[in-house]
């Protein structure tokens, strides 16, 4: 029975590790479905992580941290929107700029304010999102074999941002598929001229998408600093924004498959941590780095069209200019 408990622990850690990916992936999905390429997810999560830790420390409230994280991330989103939508600048260049800006600014400010090498002070008590225990978790664990254990260990016992992140997938899927805004958004990423001739503002839609992208990155960053960890560490996003980008590509820009990809990448990460220095029977020691590199390698192979076909929104990355 011990291996079941081990699996439960790995799955639990997989979920924790996949949350930042999930938020950033949904964020990227919104932006790119509207036709704005965003490689600045990383930077937005980073600035959100910093801002949320600062606010949570100052106010002692994790929720205030979440608000500040979202605000900071949306501000960077608007910078990206200003460059990419209003000034029709290069979206890749703008994304790179945002990543660097966030990487530098968080450390500079953190160091200036707290003088702890860029870290923020440790968050305690209500300044962190506590783990929520879902109803009947203990009872299920006691009375229902296996499933009860999984319910208590894997599903229950996470901070509020985790459940918000999962809700964001549901919401994204619903809004995209079933609402007017979602329909217009899907259309503007494929053929902005069609949206324009239907009498709808291309600029307005794209700014809307970019702001939602900022909100979701804000959630992801806040989770990192105020829920998963107890404060901000320099460069704590560590490439998660780019793995999220990979997940979006992998999912062909669709929400549910993106959830799957994020959980898969989170699981790979959890397994890599678990397997560190462990020799598997028959295989020997698996290099952890091979597992860590897997999402990136898989994305390259997918993009090259060796497995399946990746079809990004047709107008993504292209500023909209009325044709003569």
């Amino acid at each position, binding site marked *: 029975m011990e291996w079941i408990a081990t699996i439960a622990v790995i799955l639990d850690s997989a979920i924790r590790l996949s949350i930042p990916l999930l938020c950033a992936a949904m964020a990227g999905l919104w932006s790119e479905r509207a036709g704005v390429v965003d490689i600045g997810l990383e930077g937005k999560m980073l600035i959100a992580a910093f801002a949320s830790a600062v606010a949570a420390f100052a106010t002692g409230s994790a929720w205030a941290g979440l608000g500040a994280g979202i605000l900071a991330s949306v501000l960077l989103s608007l910078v990206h929107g200003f460059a990419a939508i209003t000034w029709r600048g290069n979206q890749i260049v703008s994304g790179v700029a945002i990543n660097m800006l966030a990487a530098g600014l968080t450390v500079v400010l953190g160091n200036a304010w707290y003088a702890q090498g860029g870290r923020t002070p440790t968050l305690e008590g209500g300044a962190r999102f506590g783990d929520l225990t879902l109803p009947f978790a203990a009872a299920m664990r006691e009375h229902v074999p296996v499933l009860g254990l999984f319910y208590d260990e894997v599903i229950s016992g996470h901070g509020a941002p985790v459940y918000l992140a999962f809700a964001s997938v549901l919401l994204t899927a619903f809004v995209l598929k079933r609402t*007017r805004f979602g*329909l217009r958004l899907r*259309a503007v990423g494929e*053929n902005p001229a069609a949206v324009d001739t*239907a009498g709808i503002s291309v600029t307005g839609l794209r700014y809307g998408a970019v702001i939602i992208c900022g909100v979701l990155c804000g959630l992801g960053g806040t989770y990192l600093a105020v829920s998963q960890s107890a404060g901000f560490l320099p460069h704590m996003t560590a490439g998660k924004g780019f793995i999220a980008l990979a997940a979006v590509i992998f999912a062909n820009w669709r929400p549910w498959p993106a959830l799957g990809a994020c959980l898969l990448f989170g699981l790979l990460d959890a397994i890599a941590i678990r397997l560190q220095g462990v020799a598997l029977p028959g295989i020997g020691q698996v290099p952890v780095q091979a597992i860590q590199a897997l999402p990136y390698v898989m994305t390259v192979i997918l993009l090259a069209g060796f497995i399946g076909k990746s079809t990004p929104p*047709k107008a993504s990355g292209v500023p909209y200019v009325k044709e003569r």
Partner: protein
Amino acid sequence: MPPLAIALSGISKHFGPVAANKDVSLSIAAGSIHGIVGENGAGKSTLMSILYGFYEADAGEIRIAGEARQIRSPADAIAAGIGMVHQHFMLVETLSVVENIILGAEGAAWLKNGVGKARAELARLAQDYGLVIDPDAIVGDLSVGLQQRVEILKALYRGADILILDEPTAVLTPPEADQLFALLRALKAQGKTVVLITHKLREIMDVTDAVSVMRRGEMVAHLTTAETSPPELAEAMVGRRVLLRVEKEARRRGKPVLEAVGLGVRDARGVELLQDLSLTLHAGEIVGIAGVAGNGQSELLEVLAGLLRSSRGVIRLGGRILNNADRSPAKLRKLGLMHIPEDRQRTGLVTAFSAAENAILGYQEDTAFGTGLFMSPSRIEAHARTTFNAYDVRPPDPGLKTAKFSGGNQQKIVLAREIERHPKVLLVGQPTRGVDIGAIEFIHRRLIALRDAGVAILLVSVELEEVMALSDRILAMCGGRITGERAAATADERDLGLLMAGVNERAA
């Protein structure tokens, strides 16, 4: 007299220094099918884009159903009851038919009710007009004809009383076009007003009640279809211009140099752009292609120049059959086939480069311009200076950025570059498009001199008078085929206009 559906007066629109519409007035009766004809660039699409709110006119008044309207955006046009079917469909290919139809007219924040209403409306329209379509099909999977049907349904769903169609048959097969015309008649019977923009005279004669002719941004004629004829329309489109005279003596042509047999080209959608096209170019003659733009002339040039793969057919150059490896631009240049492309800014030049750098485009590997891996700027500049002087390029400054030269001087840079390489065959596309009068004369004289020197020249131009003035023989093209051949000495404009409209095809 029934009220006018559309009354435009004094519409003008400039794009920079270019006047796309000059003081255009137009009246269209309600419940009629009204054709607007003109050559490419005559200003038809601009006028309709103004009517649809895609551009705002610099001056002029728009009245819809008798009421003066400010149309500043497509939303205003839709509110005024105008629907438009663009030449390039404004559809989202990844969405379903019903999603495309309700886009912008969803009704409420939730799609559910809007979709339900659209389905009911689609069923009604299917019954009224026979416009049957699967509402859940993905638009990208539909045939071009059905996609156009979605565009029309989109307009009707928004309650359009006026339907504008921009070159609707350009992408349709003949049976699909016939279906479309039946639909337009049905719409008219229901009291809708239809505006049909086209350059195909046959369609005008078949389906319209009245027709307006545009030329060079101006409205030149308003005619009742029943009282006009294709020759009259062709003449109005092309215009009775001051005849261009080019001094040239009759020459005896030499041996065949370039032969093409049975060329065929298809685009990605399988539409035939060139069909079973054969032609022969002899040394010392200019063969002109007459045709309304978009009838396969561009593809013909590109196939012969090695820029486009043909799906079938054989090309012989100097008696030798060209295999695939030979049909690359670099190899063809070595074999003596030079090409002055139709669009100098998009294809013939790198406008961000200096004039001197453009003077060697395509000849960058030539040992005359440097040794080994490197180029010699002084030699390139000297070469540019010599040719610019010989071709009177102004200003004769090889260091100046090419974008800063006028159209005529840019064209001279291209012309000088290709002619100075002593071609055996020269493909020339739109040699004088956007070129001032002085330069036109210069370019024409150069081409004649080249022909007299024994070069075989293929000339493609939308300017019929240019084709007539320069050519020894004229081939008319329509729909990717050659519809007739005339000796330039005996050809007349009416006759060619009919061939260009494909009228010969019916007689044959």
